[in-house]
């Protein structure tokens, strides 16, 4: 028993120190085990399919119907969104800001899940030969999936964003429920005065009438009305001002996975006055920054629930991830290695 404990502790210590011996052992074992796993997959596929047929048939049928409807709805929206994305990228490029379009990527196929009840990870069929390194963000067509935690020559392990070890700086884009302020100037009955109508956020009385009065003077010797400002042509005009309070505001927080069957949360959100109350449905994107694990503006999910907390803790946000992590087939690895994940050569 003592020998067992000693051996295990030595192995754990070596692996945690990043020993090349343990890496080689894993790599060799992977090479030997991969064909056995492939054969096992082929042999057990009928049983697996039967299992899915029994347990998921109704869900799949219902999901299929729903997806068809969603595709029909989103086809039009996708065209408009693509145009907006292109415009946004052009603007970012014009201002010298980093965009996802400027980062090379590698596509990979998911070849296996983690065979454990406690680790949330998947294995992909690309590795160092494709330029993949530890720490690189992994996406699918919907959004962020996780990050690379282990790399071998032609395979890699991806830690999913639901894993309790995963933490990432994100932005919450909150859109307060207010209307744009519009200032309209219209002619009044009195040609020397005007009426200004200001429409403001719906929380305030939408119509405030401010009648202007003719300019007068109380200085002795002057006849009131004699210095009425010269008439100028009064033109009806409408000007929409985009006030700061109505523009989508952003606040950062830390996204953390919470394990199988539990949605990730975002903590450390500053409850700033301008940011307002976070609305369920607000999008969550990666924050970016020099120390972040991912480049900015990768879609992560939407806020599903807001848990208010006392004091300065700020709200706790539960997140609906846009990527379906239970059904990953193909993923894209951004060839972007965060500074924090780089190791000395």
């Amino acid at each position, binding site marked *: *028993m003592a020998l*067992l*404990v000693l*051996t*295990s*502790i*030595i*192995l*754990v*210590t*070596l*692996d*945690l120190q990043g020993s090349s011996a*343990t890496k080689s*052992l*894993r790599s060799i*074992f*992977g090479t*030997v*085990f991969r064909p*056995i*796993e492939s*054969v*096992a*997959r082929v042999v*057990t596929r009928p*049983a*697996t399919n039967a*299992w*899915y047929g029994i347990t998921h048939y109704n869900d799949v049928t219902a999901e299929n119907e729903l997806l068809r409807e969603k595709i029909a709805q989103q086809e039009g929206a996708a065209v408009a969104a693509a145009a907006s994305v292109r415009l946004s990228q052009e603007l970012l490029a014009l201002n010298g800001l980093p965009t996802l379009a400027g980062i090379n990527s590698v596509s990979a196929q998911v070849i*296996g*899940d*983690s*065979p*454990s*009840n*406690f*680790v949330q*990870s998947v294995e992909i069929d690309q590795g160092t030969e494709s330029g993949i390194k530890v720490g690189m963000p992994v996406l699918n067509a919907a959004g962020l999936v996780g990050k690379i*935690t*282990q790399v071998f020559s032609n395979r890699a*392990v991806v*830690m999913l964003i639901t894993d*309790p*070890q995963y933490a990432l700086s994100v932005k919450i884009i909150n859109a307060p429920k207010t209307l744009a302020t519009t200032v309209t100037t219209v002619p009044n009955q009195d040609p020397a005065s005007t009426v200004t109508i200001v429409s403001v956020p719906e929380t305030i009385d939408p119509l405030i009438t401010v009648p202007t009065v003719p300019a007068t003077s109380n200085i002795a010797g002057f006849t009131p009305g004699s210095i009425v400002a010269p008439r100028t042509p009064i033109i009806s005009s409408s000007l929409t001002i985009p006030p700061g309070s109505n523009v989508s505001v952003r606040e950062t927080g830390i996204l953390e*996975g*919470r*394990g*199988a*069957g*539990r949605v990730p949360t975002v903590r450390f959100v500053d409850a700033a006055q301008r940011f307002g109350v976070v609305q369920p449905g607000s999008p969550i994107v990666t924050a970016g920054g020099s120390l972040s694990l991912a480049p900015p503006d990768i879609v992560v999910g939407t806020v599903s629930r807001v848990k208010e907390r006392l004091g300065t803790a700020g709200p706790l946000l539960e997140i609906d991830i846009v990527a379906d992590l239970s059904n990953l087939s193909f993923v894209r690895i951004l060839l972007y290695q965060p500074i924090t994940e780089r190791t000395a050569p």
Partner: protein
Amino acid sequence: MSERLLRLMASRWTRLVLVSLILLGLQTTLLNDMRPFNVMIPVMLLFAVTAGTLYGSEIGAISGLIIGVMYDCVLSTPLGLASLVFGAAAYAAGLLPFFVREPTWWTRAITIGIVGAAGELAFPLAQSMVGFSGRFQPHVAVVVVFVIVAGMIVAPLLLPVCRWTLKESLVG
């Protein structure tokens, strides 16, 4: 030379590695896909525990170590963690004769279920000890209950396989 190679090939440890490779193949494919109540049957751990119940603490601990290292190689947790947990669980299962004078197949099945669940519970604990925190969640309770039941069901299949695998000599 050839005789030594033959002896090595016929040794119980070689058989253990080969059988464990097949079980690991099942673990990473079929059992990984079939997850009732979102819990996977930890057949590798149950096999190590079975070795302990059949052949005692010492053989169990060595078997657990070997099976654990193989399992570690396909996990992203530190190498040696599963071997420690599997070895300890198999060692504990080997203490069965101290409590039951002549273990029957069903006392062994109950032991496999209970010790297997304890081992599965010890795995996130061991991860927490090396800095992988956050694995202890309410889901652990479901995992433990499921592994007890699954262990008892799978045990009658694992017992003869393990008995053959770790038999000292295949002849006689």
